[in-house]
């Protein structure tokens, strides 16, 4: 067993798969032994995510409408060229960015506020926290339906009942402000999630540091900005990362609240162009590839944040 250690440096040089690894005559090399436990998950994820992706790339280079079972002809990058001049695509891209940035931002802001409020000791603390996390647990389809029909509906929604009570005209939110209606529901669902993450951060804060700050005569505001907020930074980043992953791919809420009118993000746009009624599989695949590229730009940023988190922990 001991000699196996010397294989380690050799492994760092090769890029994993390459290199003639003929060492498994009697048993697996140390590097492969270490790799073995993660291989099943790795291979499954590769097959289930990369194969469809490669197929999409191929479809995107073809002309393909729904009337045939397979792509009709290979047309190169034409689908991509058409996309540049498609104004619906660009408005969907803008909707995507707006929806993601605003809802992640607001969820983080409100989530932090709520976490700070819940981190205090008060009567019924656990119960208040329970009430606040519940929106995150609600099925998105149900959240959309409840908000659309029971909260915001112009004739029997609770909110409009209040608005009328104030002597104003009822507003049919979902048709007048489709995008913002969806943002409201997203913020309602994701604020509790952010609150959970920030709360964990607050509870991980060392009380001795806070005591010391108080002894030094720091007031609440300066303690918050100089000690708590820097401590929360990595938690805020984690929340932002997960928020961007999930909220840039919202579909359910759009589906039940507006069916895409005035609020289609990129995933919904791809859906509309393909299986959602457009049936332009070739073109839709090209859109989806562009969406993936968009996502990877965001992912790249996100992963950099992540690697910051991972390196911090080494310190």
């Amino acid at each position, binding site marked *: 067993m001991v000699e196996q250690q010397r294989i380690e440096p050799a492994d760092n040089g090769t890029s994993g798969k390459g290199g003639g690894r003929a060492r498994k005559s009697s048993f697996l090399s140390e590097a492969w032994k270490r790799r073995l436990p993660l291989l099943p998950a790795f291979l499954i994820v590769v097959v289930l995510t990369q194969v*469809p992706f490669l197929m999409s790339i191929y479809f995107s280079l073809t002309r393909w409408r729904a009337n045939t079972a397979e792509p009709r002809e290979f047309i190169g990058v034409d689908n991509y060229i058409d996309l540049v001049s498609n104004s619906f695509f660009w408005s969907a891209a803008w909707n995507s960015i707006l929806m993601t940035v605003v809802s992640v931002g607001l969820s983080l802001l409100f989530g932090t506020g709520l976490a700070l409020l819940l981190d205090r000791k008060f009567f019924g603390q656990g119960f208040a926290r329970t009430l606040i996390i519940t929106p995150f647990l609600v*099925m998105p*389809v149900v959240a959309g339906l409840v908000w659309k029909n029971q909260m915001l509906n112009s004739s029997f929604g609770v909110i409009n009942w209040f608005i009328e009570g104030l002597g104003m005209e009822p507003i049919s939110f979902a048709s007048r402000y489709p995008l913002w209606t969806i943002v409201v529901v997203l913020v309602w669902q994701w604020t509790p999630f952010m609150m959970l993450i920030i709360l964990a951060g607050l509870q991980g804060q060392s009380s001795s540091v806070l005591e010391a700050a108080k002894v030094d005569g720091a007031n609440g505001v300066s303690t918050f900005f100089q000690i708590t907020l820097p401590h929360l930074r990595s938690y805020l980043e984690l929340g932002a990362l997960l928020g961007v992953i999930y909220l840039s791919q919202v579909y359910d809420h759009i589906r039940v609240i507006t069916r895409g009118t005035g609020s289609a993000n990129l995933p919904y746009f791809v859906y509309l162009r393909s299986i959602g009624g457009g049936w332009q599989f070739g073109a839709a695949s090209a859109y989806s590839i562009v969406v993936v590229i968009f996502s990877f730009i965001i992912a790249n940023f996100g992963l950099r944040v992540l690697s910051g988190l991972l390196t911090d922990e080494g310190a």
Partner: protein
Amino acid sequence: MADFAKPKGKGRFTSLAFTSLTWLLAGIFFFPIFWMFISGFKSELDANGAPKLFFEPTLEQYRIVTETPPGQLGFWEATTNSFIIVIVSTLIVMMLAVPTAYALTIRPVGKWMEYLFFFISTKFLPIVASILPIYILAKHFDLLSSRRLLIILYMSMNLPLAIWMLRSFFQEVPRELIEAAEIDGANLRSQMVSVILPIVAPGLAATALLCFIFAWNEYFLAVQLNTTGGETVPIWASSVVDERGQFLAKLSAASTLATLPVIVAGWVAQKRMIRGLAMGAIK
């Protein structure tokens, strides 16, 4: 932002004000769910008029939505499908993620960070971008008429998240304990069972719960792939109520039924989730 810091030493008035504010916000956040819940016990007449807090409760709507009209997806069928799909996929996720987390932390592979990034980066692939190939492949492998397809897809959807969360819990296992077990000659299995698993158990629970929530609530894949024999609760919830005429009470009853399992699970496990979501993920 206002001064939200700990109230010790502050006036009682400030403390009371913060507490009231917290309760007010908790009430606002919970209100739509409260409203959904009580509206399910209303008659359609009560549910569709001016908002009412007091009314004569009835179970009529629950009876209507759980009755299956011929040829349509029924509540019990959807619930059975959902439970089977969600539980099986979550179990597979955990079975795959535990060894993976082990290989990323305790005896790490070379370039473990690149493996981890690869797993996470797949979460950035929008599902909608691969729905067409998935449909074609599923048809080819004859998966469209069973629960298997959603089990596979939910597994691949949750696996990266589970690996990411579990990795952080595995990191909390003190090195000395593992080394001590090795010196005692414990093999991998007994190391796992007697040293590692007891420490990561709360993390396993939190991770499994999160996978459960995301899989139970998933709608897009379920509705687009429209597997016969594998329709889940979100499909039922979005289709059981005809949005014509008076439907708010029925909708509320159906919504309550659809969300109840996850809400109850979340309430029970919230403390572990708080630990699991972030403490583990960052430390």
